[in-house]
């Protein structure tokens, strides 16, 4: 059936009962049906990385999954990083290192880095830099994003708590 079906998405630990057609991407469902507009859409075909979120711990492009595929999965978006008014260490590092200017790509970068460090806290600086090539940023020239990400990696190595 191409008609809408009822599904429940679990986003940042909260259930969202929504009604979506199969063709609705997870990114669009998050923004339009769950009201979580922190996830941005740039290219809508997997190239820019602005829509990166984590699904069951893996950083993925939410424009390349359909919402119906994500039922039952643990979905994490940028809205889930901060604890109330307290930013996560990674978010704080982004501010301190001036790792954003216009901010459009920022949610995707934050989730890419957060997901990667939780998945592989033992990666090297060089591997992390390579992973940052996954997403496009047209403002910063990447140097500041790399600095913020490396501070998050150092933080992950030196604390028992998750980096972000």
């Amino acid at each position: 059936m191409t008609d809408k079906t009822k599904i429940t998405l679990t986003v940042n630990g909260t259930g969202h009962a929504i009604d979506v057609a199969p063709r609705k991407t997870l990114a669009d469902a998050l923004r339009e049906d769950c009201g979580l507009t922190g996830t941005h859409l740039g290219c809508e075909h997997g190239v820019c990385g602005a829509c990166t979120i984590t699904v069951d711990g893996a950083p993925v492009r939410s424009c390349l999954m359909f919402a119906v595929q994500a039922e039952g999965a643990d979905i994490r978006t940028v809205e889930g990083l901060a604890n109330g008014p307290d930013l996560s260490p990674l978010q704080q590092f982004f501010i301190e290192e001036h790792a954003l200017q216009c901010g459009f790509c920022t949610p995707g970068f934050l989730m890419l880095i957060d997901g990667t460090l939780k998945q592989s806290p033992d990666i090297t600086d060089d591997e992390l830099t390579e992973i940052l090539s996954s997403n496009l940023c047209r403002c910063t020239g990447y140097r500041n994003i790399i600095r913020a990400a490396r501070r998050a990696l150092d933080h992950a190595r030196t604390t028992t708590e998750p980096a972000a």
Partner: protein
Amino acid sequence: MKPAPFAYYRPTSLEDAAARLAEGVDDGAMILAGGQSLVPMMALRVAYPSELIDLNVLPDLGTPFIDGTALVVPALTRHASFHKADPAFGVTGRMMAEVVRHIAHYPIRQRGTFCGSLAHADPSSEWALTANVLGAELELLSTRGTRRVPIADWCDGAMSTTREPDEILVATHLPLLSETTRTGFCEISRRAGDFALGMALVAIEVQGDTITAARVGLGGIEDAPRRIAEAEAELIGQPATPDTFAKAADAAMAVVEAMGDATTPPEYRRDLAGTVIRRALAQAIA
């Protein structure tokens, strides 16, 4: 940039998926695995399946395993499964861990699948190149039963394979390399994670200073990756030196039918074929 409407089906088994595909294929039903090529094509309205049969709901199709002397890669093994070389996969696993870093980007590799890459058959597929060098067999399932296709009979030009429309690629069988094999890989692309303009994957055996066995695979240059027998012939029985590698590269450049596009003329790709073969061979003996 929104996919056209389609129906969505959750199969209960691979057999159920094959039955559903047989039923709907004439109307445009398709298999959905990782979706990292299919979904962009749907967004661009290059693909508009009537129904997607989602293999992701099926259990136990994700983990590659050893069967005798082959590495078996089931339908849902993600690219990311090969990020860390499994010691049980030996030289083959280490080679694949090197190759996988060149496939798209990290988040794409979390979803995209090995078998999906072979089914999609992009000329610059790193896994199609790997399958050629390893001499893979592809296991296909339909309501008519299963059959195996050697990789040499698989690619049928760019983005085209000899798969029948109602068949599902359920596993790829990769014969393991011997533990004395030395491998090298070189890929050139315009940007990190972009499609390969040219790439070479080589596997050679060296005894003393002499090359005793050689496989030279080339991808991204022609309309499908393949081994280049003329280059391999220049290596066998010869010393493993830059001179020998240059002769192998020249032999490949003489026979390839290089693709051209708006920004990359065939002459450029032909030249690149030589470069990536020389570099991959140098890496193999480094």
